């Protein structure tokens, strides 16, 4: 368990007070970020669905889970300091 995963917490720290609209807005940014690594993401029923080009999908309940799912699908962590990602944003 990781505190970041929020498994033992009622709500992940980044989600506190965030409603559906906030999740949709955030999903748009997440989609742009994961797309840089060849992954897809969409918001669905209050959760995030992460997918790769091979048709594999994972459902993530919060932000920390998004990065874990993305890492599993990609085979390595997605680094926000990646200069090509930073340039793309």
């Amino acid at each position, binding site marked *: *368990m*990781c*505190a*970041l*995963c929020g*498994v*033992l*917490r009622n709500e992940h*720290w*980044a*989600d*506190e007070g*965030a409603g559906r609209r*906030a999740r949709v*807005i*955030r999903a748009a*940014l*997440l989609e742009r*970020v994961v797309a840089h690594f060849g992954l897809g993401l969409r918001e669905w029923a209050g959760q995030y669905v992460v997918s790769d080009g091979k048709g594999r999908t994972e459902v993530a309940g919060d*932000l*920390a889970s*998004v*990065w*874990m799912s993305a*890492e599993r699908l990609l085979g390595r*962590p*997605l*680094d*926000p*300091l990646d*200069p090509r*990602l*930073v340039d793309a*944003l």
Partner: protein
Amino acid sequence: MSRTPVALVTGYLGSGKTTLIRHLLEHPAMGETAVIVNELGEIGIDHAILRRVDERTVLLASGCLCCTLRGDLVDELRDLVDRRDAGEVPPFRRVVVETTGLADPAPIVNTLLAEPLVRHQYALETIVATLDAQHGLRGPESLRQAAAADLLLVTKVDLADGSSVEADARALNPVAEVVQIVGGELHPDRLFSGARAACVHSTRALSAHAHDDEVRSVSVALEGPVDWLAFGVWLTMLLHARGPEILRVKGLLDVGGEGPLLLNAVQHVVHPPEHLAAWPDGDRRSRLVFIGSGFTPEALERSLRAFVA
């Protein structure tokens, strides 16, 4: 029901933790204090409730080491409350937890923040780290302890000049208050006043000549309101990708309200963000301090700006 404040006292072997606690417990203001220590018999104070714990770390499936739960601490903290409620131990209003000299504070912080029953009863008030003036920062354990601290105590300054160790401590952890002490003398208010929360001093660029693999602190300041949703995306991504390299994040964020949002993370154990009623000074820029290795200040700032701008 108000939660019982907890002060965590950490520090390398022989750096003066026990002397500090012994002195604190002699102060009249420290009555009704429960103390959880590793070695019974060294403190030798009658009025405190002393409990000994053996380090027992519970690593849950798919977990990383810094986010483990300290099962021993969970048991002790829960048992203390049960026995207080049953009248089996004297009432106590605060708790001091002493770590071992080699302990990583992150699992203890995680236990206090994430274990549901513990966080319902207790609130982590402050993290204190002792640094011996003769030896200073020693090894990775010492760095992790000092980086996690809100209050850094340079001890044994009667035996050695503490100025060099104090300078190292300030450079490593600019979000901590650094104080030199002799013989463990410290007023309890320094641990339990609750005034240290917003202590994010500077926007200094520190250790500019450090190598990437050297632990250092980096400060970033941003003008204007920060997009909180984008910031959450960025920070969770950063802590996931580079968690082992990041020892501490602390900052005040302008998210458009009257006061800032206080953000505090020890490794990637993140405290629930807290809205403060007002800024601590006239500087209303968002400011963040990162302590860690493996990144340059430029790369960190450029990435953050790309996400939140």
